[in-house]
């Protein structure tokens, strides 16, 4: 990092060298979670604030465990208990947190760019834990980490990402990261859930799952949210499952050693069949395990930088 990374706001501006640095550092922390004492004293006396304006039990928990395994003090602030519901502006919230001298602020917000705004108004390092339809960089890092552990490398792998591409910050961050590290990325969705400008990310676009899965090394399924039904973007979950669901027969079109991924939470029987999700090629729980190691690496690399430089 050479002291250059103060925030992790997205994959878009992250050079391949820094991505690899995060992944390599995460390898070290992966081992910590399997020891008798699953904790290192590294960030003793540092404070991490999880500032979640959107509900997310699993991402928040993953960051919380990561911070605690580094011996940082972790505080969770969620929208339902914060003064945002009393009308406080985002800037006031940040100024109040800033006065408590946090070292890292982990932000999830429904508005794209909210973490960038916060980063401009705090000395703390800021981690984007998902902003609107924009990015979810730690998810992309943990997915890359999981793929690299399973396959040994990322370059030249064929990775198929299927689901609600138009509304998925996970798909966007993954497409950016995986193409940057030399993987061949295919995205797949019904036409109604495909953004028009997807080719700009250097990915191949499919509107049918079979050809998209053909010969793939990695098949990553994304959650279909039920509000897409009310928006009439998909006809029915049964129809979606029939044409875009990953079942055993569909998976047979991928490489014999292909792995199956899903960032969760899953809709079993919609985008993925239960016997595939629980099958021998599923690495879905490995992704959860990798999440803690990757977030430890991110907090470690950002925390020591934090508070050292003045406000921009």
């Amino acid at each position, binding site marked *: 990092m050479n002291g250059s990374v103060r925030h992790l706001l997205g994959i878009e501006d992250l050079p391949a060298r820094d991505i690899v640095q995060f992944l390599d550092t995460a390898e070290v922390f992966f*081992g910590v979670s399997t020891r*008798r*004492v699953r904790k290192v004293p590294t960030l003793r006396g540092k404070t991490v604030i999880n500032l979640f304006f959107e509900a997310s039990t699993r991402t928040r928990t993953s960051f919380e465990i990561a911070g605690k395994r580094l011996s940082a003090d972790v505080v969770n602030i969620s929208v339902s208990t914060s003064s945002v519901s009393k009308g406080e502006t985002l800037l006031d919230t940040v100024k109040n947190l800033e006065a408590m001298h946090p070292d890292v602020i982990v932000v999830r917000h429904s508005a794209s760019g909210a973490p960038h705004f916060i980063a401009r108004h705090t000395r703390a390092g800021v981690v984007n834990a998902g902003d609107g339809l924009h990015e979810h960089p730690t998810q992309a890092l943990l997915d890359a980490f999981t793929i690299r552990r399973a396959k040994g490398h990322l370059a030249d792998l064929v990775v198929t990402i299927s689901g609600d591409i138009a509304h998925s910050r996970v798909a966007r961050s993954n497409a950016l990261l995986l193409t940057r590290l030399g993987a061949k990325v295919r995205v797949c969705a019904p036409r109604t859930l495909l953004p028009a400008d997807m080719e700009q990310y250097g990915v191949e676009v499919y509107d049918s799952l079979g050809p998209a899965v053909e010969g793939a090394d990695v098949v990553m399924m994304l959650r279909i949210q039920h509000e897409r039904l009310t928006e009439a973007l998909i006809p029915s979950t049964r129809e979606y499952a029939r044409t875009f669901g990953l079942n055993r027969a569909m998976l047979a079109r991928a490489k014999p050693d292909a792995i199956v991924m899903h960032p969760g939470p899953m809709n079993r029987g919609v985008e993925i069949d239960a016997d595939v999700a629980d099958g021998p090629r599923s690495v879905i729980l490995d992704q959860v395990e990798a999440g803690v190691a990757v977030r430890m690496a991110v907090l*470690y690399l950002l925390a020591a930088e934090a508070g050292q430089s003045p406000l921009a």
Partner: protein
Amino acid sequence: MRPRAAGVYRRAMTTATTQAARVVMDGSAVADALGRVAREIAARHPDGDALALVGVRRGGIPLAARLHGLLIDAGRAGVLVGTVDITLYRDDAATALPNPQIGRSEIPFEVEGRVVILVDDVLYTGRTTRAAIDAVMDYGRPRAIELAVLVDRGHRELPIQADYVGLRVETSRRERVEVRVDPGDASHAVVEVLGPAENTHSHGA
């Protein structure tokens, strides 16, 4: 200034030509010292099955490997070997810049109940050893932890001492002790003391 032993691996680029350097151990002296340390360990621990050597990254790793070989030759067949990286346990970890070059600790055995001998190249302030002790403890509760070093150069800042010492060297704090080991063969090693570049004739206390 002095001949370099053939096959010696340089651990760091040095500007030895502009620094006062004295070789305190050549290849055969290092081999003799490691042989003596191995005999002392074997004498103190008749049961190799309860013993593990853990090299402190990075200087201790080739020395632990060499001692491991010597102990097996001495009939301590069950002795195990591992490595420990102390980056996450440094006492300045939370205030120093992050070190992106953290290495992995590899302790692929049960520490519980075993005698762990930490192996390092140079014992100086003792801070590295303190960190290594804490790191090993997080893998389990060893029966005992001992310390073997190739060089003890003094200037301790913590109450720590070595159980096995290859060589004690008088140094000043301004000097630097460098151990260069051929990773393929730790008997090809040389230990030298480098003076500060601006003061070429300062040799220790």
